[in-house]
């Protein structure tokens, strides 16, 4: 009796495995396909020098002390960020009263040097670091799918 049920259960397990043999892939073929993250994803920060009102709230709320205020030539305080410490919590962008700091949806970057990850205000204002893809990627968005969990639609 026990043996028989065991055999049946074994067969059921194998059968279930076989059912998924036909490729119904969950795999995201990064970097050929790149997931476009939803609006509001907390990735690398964009800093707008014009909008900054030098209030230093961002530096005060930063949990990792990654944002520091630099005194510029005009005696005004401006934030610079050190991505070696940043934990991408987005508190700085959420407390910024003027929208000078905003998050972007980019978060797939690696660096070869430590110094490259420090962004003083001038470098910070120049723009967001961009990931490098070997070839032009196809952007997709992920969606929940009843059949296979996640599916990827082209943008």
């Amino acid at each position: 009796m026990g043996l028989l049920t065991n055999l049946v259960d074994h067969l059921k397990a194998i059968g279930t495995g076989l059912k998924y043999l036909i490729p119904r892939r969950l795999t995201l073929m990064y970097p050929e396909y790149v997931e476009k993250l939803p609006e509001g994803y907390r990735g690398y920060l964009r800093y707008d020098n014009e909008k900054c009102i030098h209030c230093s709230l961002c530096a005060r709320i930063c949990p990792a002390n990654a944002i520091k205020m630099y005194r510029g030539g005009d005696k005004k305080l401006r934030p610079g960020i050190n991505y070696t410490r940043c934990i991408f919590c987005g508190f700085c962008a959420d407390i910024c009263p003027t929208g000078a700091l905003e998050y972007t949806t980019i978060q797939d970057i690696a660096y070869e040097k430590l110094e490259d990850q420090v962004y003083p205000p001038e470098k910070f204002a120049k723009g967001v670091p961009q990931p490098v893809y070997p070839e032009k990627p196809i952007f997709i968005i992920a969606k929940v799918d009843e059949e296979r969990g996640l599916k990827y639609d082209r943008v």
Partner: protein
Amino acid sequence: MELKERIETIVGSTGEVRIDRGNIVVEVKEPKKIIEIAKKLKAEGFDHVKSVSGVDYSDQGYFEIVYHVSSYSTPELAKAILVLKVKVPSDNPRSPSLIEIWPSVEMMERETYEMYGIIFEGHPELKRLFLPEEFEGVYPLRKSFKIKEEGIMA
């Protein structure tokens, strides 16, 4: 509150009972008396300890050991959190271990020893738990142990 009265009779003159934000706080007057109280509380149905914490009040000359006790087996006691507090002098922090009564304190008392240097008398394995050897004799959670802090300026 009925439970508070019950605990008051248990504690008697060895401690003070009050209610703080819904939790029953028992401040034990003397470290030696804590064993006695704990035994009675265990008999009452408080069967495990949720957390053992040290708090450093060495500017006032003492450390506080805080036990948060509750129950799994008695549903109505499970709703309550009993805070058992005892003060030990910061120059000679010693208190009896409650491991005999509540075995669940074992790791937590060990951690409190490691972080504050509070000696729990009767604990069978009172040695460092998390920290590497170079922290022998250094008690990092004491207020006298300072760590780096940075301002907001670069």
